[in-house]
């Protein structure tokens, strides 16, 4: 479950520039901006796909189209052969930050995912199970703003997983976390992936995130986004680019591809 096929995907939008003036003081005309151009990609079911690319290249747009929040200009996304066009609990989006509803406690937020469950005992046990899984015992009745950044992300992860979705779509899930929390969250997501085997699409700016986590690394070019690299990574976990020469090689290749001449 969770095989994804992206066919000939294009996304354009019209940038309004009427309020801007050119050198002669005339209003500029609107222009079409192409964000994604003829994108073809295929991800296997259960893969953790890490998508890298320069800022503003359309990575997030791609994720939002896959999630069904935005419609492509042309082309399509197929999940197990069915066309994806609207948001559904099968594919849960995990936000950069503030994805939790701030007026609900951790418990209430997680409950959203299984609110239609008819057996209240089962519902309660499931929520508690996921809260325990992301180690938020004792914080069930805290509001998001009372939690640290890392705890907020973990709560959101629990809310996403409790639905038992086919796929998780994560848009820079570690940005804004301090270094140690970042490392810890990364490890948790890898373990969660190894354990549950769900398809995960994850956009990141961090090359090491991609190399350590990904079953596949996709690099997109600057706008309009096209696939520059699509490579399967067959390395066992836990990984460390510093001790695996092949990973280190790939790391340098990726740095070069993204316009940095030597790996930092």
């Amino acid at each position: 479950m969770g095989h994804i096929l992206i066919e000939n995907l294009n996304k354009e939008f019209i940038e309004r520039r009427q309020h801007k003036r050119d050198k002669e003081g005339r209003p500029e005309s609107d222009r079409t901006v192409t964000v994604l151009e003829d994108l073809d990609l295929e991800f296997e079911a259960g893969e953790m796909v890490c998508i890298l690319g320069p800022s503003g290249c359309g990575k997030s747009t791609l994720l939002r189209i896959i999630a069904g929040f935005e419609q492509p200009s042309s082309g399509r996304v197929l999940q197990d052969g069915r066309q994806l066009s609207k948001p559904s609990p099968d594919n849960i989006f995990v936000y950069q930050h503030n994805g939790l509803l701030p007026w609900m406690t951790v418990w209430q937020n997680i409950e959203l995912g299984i609110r239609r469950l008819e057996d209240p005992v089962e519902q309660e046990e499931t929520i508690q199970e996921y809260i325990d899984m992301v180690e938020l015992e004792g914080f069930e009745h805290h509001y998001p703003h009372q939690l640290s950044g890392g705890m907020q992300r973990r709560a959101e992860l629990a809310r996403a997983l409790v639905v038992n979705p086919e796929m998780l779509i994560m848009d820079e899930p570690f940005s804004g976390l301090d270094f140690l929390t970042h490392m810890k969250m990364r490890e948790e997501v890898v373990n969660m992936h190894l354990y549950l085997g769900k398809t995960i699409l994850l956009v990141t700016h961090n090359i090491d995130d991609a190399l350590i986590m990904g079953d596949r690394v996709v690099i997109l070019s600057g706008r309009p986004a096209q696939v520059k690299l699509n490579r399967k990574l067959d390395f066992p976990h836990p990984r460390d680019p510093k001790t695996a020469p092949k990973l280190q090689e790939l790391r340098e290749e990726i740095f070069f591809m993204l316009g940095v001449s030597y790996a930092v």
Partner: protein
Amino acid sequence: MESSKPAFIYTAAAFLGALALWELTARFSGWSAQIFPGPGAVLASLIELTGNGTLIRHSIASLYRVTAGFYLAMFLGIPLGMCLGRCKPLRLMINPVIHFLRPISPLAWIPLSMLWFGIGDLPAIFLIFLSSFFPLLVATTIAVRSINPVYFQVANNFNFSRLESFTKIMVPATIPAIVTALRLSITIAWLVVVAAEMIAVQSGLGYLILDSRNALRMDYVMVGMVVIGVIGLLLDYIMRQLMNIESAAWGTLGHK
């Protein structure tokens, strides 16, 4: 320097100072006690008007009008504001009309409202309604429009029904802004009721003031003013209690 004295001491001191100033002005300004009664005379009249029930009757009449007009404004303005916030075509249609009507003072409606609704409570209630309807409507529209779109994406992602989007996203997200708007508009409504009562009715605190002026009883006029101030304070106090709802909705209660 931060003082450890309780806050009410400062409030009491300010009120006492104002009273003293009033007393001094009354005594030494050269105006007669008929034109500028001092606090003592006003207190005596206050006791007199409370004792014979006049004050209670007029206060209840004013409060009734404010409550009726304000509730009407709430029950029409807030839902309409929610619709305008969510529906762009409706907003494009109705917003210009609202922004045209909004700057017209409710008092400018007095002649028409008297013609339409006659003499009695209705024209006053209509004016109160007008005075709070537009602020509530505009504040709600803006509140709905400034909801973070992420929350609606979450709603879609988790398959919320329309009702769920309303009760779980729109209502809690807008409560803080709406409570603030309620606080501001009850004050405006209270300002307007007194003005409205000077024209169209035979009861209420505004009427008391106007009637006392005609009888040249400036002590009664001042009693009316004092009571208006006190009730205004009370209304604001009640509205401030609503802030607790806002805090509860966003979980900031423990953070004060």
